[in-house]
């Protein structure tokens, strides 16, 4: 199973590098809207393509209230003849630079008292390798952002669940007796709570706040952690090296910190590989239902939901985020598989 573990680590590293270092490489803002490229299909060739440039030029002409003819697109330049009934207002040429497709336009020739002009504008080159979303935003940049959000949620959500659960479990286990009984009964009762419903209630009623998401997810996932830590503490507590430390006069805090925590750590971190993807999954699930992170932020669940809505006309909107989410989850699954077989986690 060592192979699976390595594969998992490689997958996760790839996803992390893609999401975190990716934006530096593309230098693209995730919130920029390209109205000209709404729902553009994925392509390795830069935008605008010749037809897109023609269409864009016509739109610019429309905005300038002139007619465009003899449009030609060649060598990264677009040129056209613009004509109107009154002399063309040259200030309106800024519409070229304002569009997503062109740079500033130059007048090459002016005829008929300016009623007919020949203009040329360089094409702006824009790569949208994964296409654009229904708002005309670069899907690649959105995807990287979503990956970062999901990873962050995974890390922070697990940290919340882990920190609280381990502390709770260790205290219950070490205190033992009635304290333990009461603390663990509470955990048992919470297990009967239908958690998915609970989380939906929480996020639906209190609104979509980022912090709340962690609270909700942490509240779901700390129970397993508490049980695991408590069980380990309970068995470690009666182990000889802990008894020896007690009889040497070492206090409870020092025993928990020096003897018990280090011995639980391995199992806890192994469990992280199981916990983190579950947290990511809960977040994606909530986002899918529209209860997760809010615009302009996004997450893989949001993108998958959006993709599912545009299945008919833009299936790529589903494919890319679904693939990234699966890579992320498989990466964790491969690592978790290994820890599960070694640490006998149930």
């Amino acid at each position: 199973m060592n192979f699976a573990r390595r594969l998992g680590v490689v997958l996760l590293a790839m996803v992390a590098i893609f999401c975190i270092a990716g934006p530096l490489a593309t230098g693209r803002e995730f919130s920029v809207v390209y109205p000209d490229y709404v729902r553009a299909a994925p392509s390795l060739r830069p935008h605008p393509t010749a037809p897109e440039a023609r269409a864009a030029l016509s739109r610019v002409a429309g905005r300038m209230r002139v007619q465009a003819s003899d449009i030609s697109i060649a060598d990264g330049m677009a040129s056209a003849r613009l004509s109107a009934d009154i002399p063309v207002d040259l200030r309106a040429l800024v519409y070229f630079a304002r569009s997503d497709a062109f740079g500033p336009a130059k007048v090459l020739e002016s005829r008929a008292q300016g009623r007919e002009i020949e203009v040329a504008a360089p094409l702006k080159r824009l790569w949208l390798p994964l296409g654009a979303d229904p708002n005309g935003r670069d899907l690649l940049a959105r995807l990287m952002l979503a990956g970062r959000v999901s990873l962050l949620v995974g890390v922070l959500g697990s940290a919340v669940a882990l920190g609280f659960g381990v502390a709770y479990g260790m205290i219950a286990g070490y205190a033992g007796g009635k304290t333990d009984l009461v603390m663990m009964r509470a955990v048992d009762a919470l297990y009967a709570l239908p958690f998915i419903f609970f989380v939906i209630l929480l996020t639906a009623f209190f609104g979509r706040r980022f912090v709340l998401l962690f609270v909700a997810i942490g509240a779901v996932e700390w129970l397993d952690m508490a049980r695991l830590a408590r069980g380990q503490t309970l068995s470690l507590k009666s182990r000889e090296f802990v008894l020896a430390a007690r009889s040497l006069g070492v206090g409870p805090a020092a025993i928990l910190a020096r003897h018990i925590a280090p011995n639980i750590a391995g199992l806890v971190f192994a469990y992280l590989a199981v916990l983190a993807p579950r947290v990511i999954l809960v977040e994606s699930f909530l986002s899918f239902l529209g209860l997760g992170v809010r615009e302009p932020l996004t997450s893989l669940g949001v993108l998958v939901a959006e993709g599912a809505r545009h299945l008919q006309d833009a299936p790529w909107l589903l494919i890319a985020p679904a693939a990234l989410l699966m890579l992320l989850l498989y990466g964790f699954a491969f690592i978790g598989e290994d820890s599960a077989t070694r640490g006998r986690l149930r």
Partner: protein
Amino acid sequence: MSEPLFAIDDLSVEYAAGTAVVGVSLRVDAGEAVAVVGESGSGKSQTLLAALGLLDAGARVMGSARFGDQQLIGAPRATLDRLRGDRITFVFQEPMTALDPLVRVGAQIAAPISAHGGAAAKARARALLEEVGIAGGAGRAGAYPHQLSGGERQRVMIAMALANRPDLLIADEPTTALDATVQKRILDALEERRRALGLAMILVTHDLRLARRYAARVYVMRAGRVVEEGATAAVFAAPREAYTRGLIEAAPPRAAAGRDEQAPEVLACDDLRVSYERKSAVQGVSMALRRGRTLAVVGESGSGKSTLARALLRLQPAQGDIRWLGRSVSRLEGAALREARRAVQIVFQDPFAALSPRFSIDDIVVEGLRAQGRLSAGAARRALEAVGLDPAFGAREPDASSGGQRQRVAIARALAVEPAVIALDEPTSSLDRAVQRDILELLARLQAERGLAYLFITHDLGLARAFADDVIVLKEGRVVERGAAAEVFARPAEVYTRELIEAADLGP
């Protein structure tokens, strides 16, 4: 020489990780009882499991094992299935796991009978339960394994083994998991049935005393090889190998002699009671241990000896009065209790479990001093030297040291806080014989030098007799007998003590 019933010839077992058995040969004649003896890991069980094709798929078995004319190594499954459970049967060490926990014992005994074509399997199974002497007899056929005691489960296993009147019975450490007194009764019952049915037996054991009592011939194994073989009496009378001599020499030389009976009390309790999970483990024990003396607490597993020790050290909640250095500590809590703790320390049976795995030896040894804020330079070195360890050893981690070294570290840790009493909870049970003796000599020296008192918890009556001034015999959490060790062992007053001594087979 007549044709043997069962003969293993030049048998080897290899795993990917290494070789477990190297060229072992042994033979058993019809009706003969033979023992295979060796320490754990010597390959004795592997040899017999391999001969019967019971090893996991990862093992490579070479050589020959013949039952009559039939070669077993490499024989087809159908051939093996015809012999196994019918002509050759096996009694395993752990009846709790060897029996199926989900099947009634009557059905488990009946299964091999019907599998080998026997009629009226159920009735026969019930008769067998009577035959092996289970309390309640045939009436227990409907019980599940977990409803029986360890001894009863092993009797069920033996009933299975006898069910088809085999020619050969292989018993692999059949009583190691059981208490001494139960052990003797079960083996006596097995021996009685064996003689009555005239079957041959191979007894696999680490305990030479059992071999002496139940086998005519013995093979001694070490590191996968047979190092000595012969008639049991001859091997015992004149062992050729040092290894065999080490196994035979039981108790260490007597260490205790003439210590002050009127010295001040250092550890005592009155009417001590411990109960957990609604069962009482210690029921009203009173005792006193004086400075410089050794008090042995003996009894079978489950008699409450370890619980008593832990309660005396306030490591386990208990009722009753406990006194350390004459001062009552039953009501102490928190910092005051921690402060008082340095007077009494403990050394455990398993030196691998007793040392925190992530600490260096130095850190382990001075942990008590650090907790009490008395840590000074060179403390670790002095503590290690006191137990005969090289101070350079301190930089290591426990994982890199042997059982004997670890046990010395555990003793050094206890000594470092300068206690008056050390509770020794089976301190040598998990060590090899030779190492055992070194540790006991060290303990005796430390006692003489420092006037330490020992509370010596052991199931080994030989050790108790050799090492203790006084002895307490514990049964089901109560003291059944107490007195000077010499007196108790020479003239036990109670039946139970007599049984224990008899089962321990102490010899002269």
